[in-house]
């Protein structure tokens, strides 16, 4: 297997180390990974190969005198193909205070099981 060419090379983003990963496939179509310094590298490589995901952070409009934008984020990594639609949905939304940090703003986006949540509290007084 070691003489085989890797089918893909990537850099792990699980932590700041940034391991250079090489992905190989055997005749049974099973994936193997080299270059990882820990087990998270294998999980990352498999996810990145079959279905890449990212945490998304952006803002939505807030009906607030002092804070025009409320920061929001996904509560888990979202499949990449849904990122642009999620961002559009967030920008189209207006939230009214009070909002609690962690409050769900969009539930189960497009059946992915991923929620959009507020990442800051906005009290009534705002």
């Amino acid at each position: 297997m070691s003489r085989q060419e890797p089918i893909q090379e990537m850099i792990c983003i699980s932590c700041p180390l940034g391991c250079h990963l090489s992905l190989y496939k055997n005749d049974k179509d099973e994936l193997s990974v080299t270059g990882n310094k820990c087990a998270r590298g294998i999980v990352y490589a498999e996810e990145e190969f079959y279905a890449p995901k990212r945490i998304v952070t952006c803002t939505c409009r807030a009906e607030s005198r002092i804070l025009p934008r409320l920061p929001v984020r996904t509560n888990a990594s979202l499949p990449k193909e849904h990122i642009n639609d999620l961002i559009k949905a967030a920008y189209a939304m207006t939230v009214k205070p009070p909002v609690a940090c962690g409050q769900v703003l969009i539930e189960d986006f497009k059946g992915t099981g991923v929620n959009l949540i507020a990442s800051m509290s906005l009290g009534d007084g705002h």
Partner: protein
Amino acid sequence: MKELHYDVLIIGAGAGGLAAAVEVSKHDTSCALVERESHLGGILVQCIHNGFGLEEFKEELTGPEFADRQVQQVLASNVDVYTDTTVTQLDADGDLKEAYCFSPAYGVLKITAHAVILAMGCRERNRGNIRTPGTRPAGVYTAGLAQRLVNIEGYIPGKDVVIVGSGDIGLIMARRMTWVGAKVHAVIEIQPYPSGLTRNIVQCLNDFDIPLYLSHVVSRIEGKDRIEKVRVCPLANGIPDEDNSFDIPCDTLLLSVGLVPENELSKEAGVQINPQTNGALVDATMMTSVDGVFSCGNVLHVHDLADWVAEEARRTGRYAVAYLRDERPKRQIRIKAGANVRYINPTMLDPDNPDKLYFRSLIVKNQAKLHLKLDHNPVKEVKISHVQPSEMLHVKVKPKDVASWNIMKDSVLEVSVE
């Protein structure tokens, strides 16, 4: 003029000031926390991306969430918080330090304290600092200012963006500008390697096919009222190769070209500055050259992680409380930045209470080794899998390390990387 007295005064309520305040309040000590903005949390509030808190809170948080956790701790403590309050002068010569503050609520306010912790953070280097030739049109922003406009104020600075500098703020803003509908045409980096974390290169540039030009500079800014284009010039052996330069049309240029500790107040108070860090010179207890004045976080030296700022600030809070109780180190030895080390903080070590040292490498290397030498004799060696100038490193000197050292009054501990 209203006058107030506290045991400890903390200036700045970002990641550092908040962590220091929580620590100070745990020791039955009165504490004032003064912040010039109307909100607590400092710059964290505009850093809406994730990547914070893995060490401090053992989970991945965004900047506002990280700040929120710290703020809840402060509000649950006996710390008195003064927002919208700017310290304009610090007189720190005597035993009783005097800070003159301005606030809409109190007018002029004088706060006296036996110990002061400086936690004012840093500010961005701008076009003047990197001396970019050309015209002076609108549309040139520092990356952090653009981040504030987009994430807090809700304004988009422009549609066709070029970013100078591949530090983490520049990379994060490349993704952020793309996600608000702008086109980021390039990131230009003067060094032959990226200055931000590799994971940010992947998730902020590669994900969006944004080109990164290493060993390139913006050699000219052009445009009459608004910026119209930049000239990008490759460096050949460090010298600009104008023949191979090219233009990139743009309406916005974001500068992510480093941070400078904000020490005007410290300097006026007589605090001695370390030219390597632009922050205070501090001893083993994070105390500056002015007795009873401490410094921590980005005003001491620019950190990569808010988590490390909080950790350093907590220690500083503890040392300030010890100072109030007259618990000072019995002896301290000098720490010297040796081969391939740009600086080390703090610059003194208390052999009876050794602690964490933060430092930066001057070289890029895999499988590097950190050497500690006491008066030229090797005393400790640590393997580090990867070093580069943009990533801060740390080493913890343990009491059991020091136990076998032959420490003299004028001993010097040298830290080097190979």
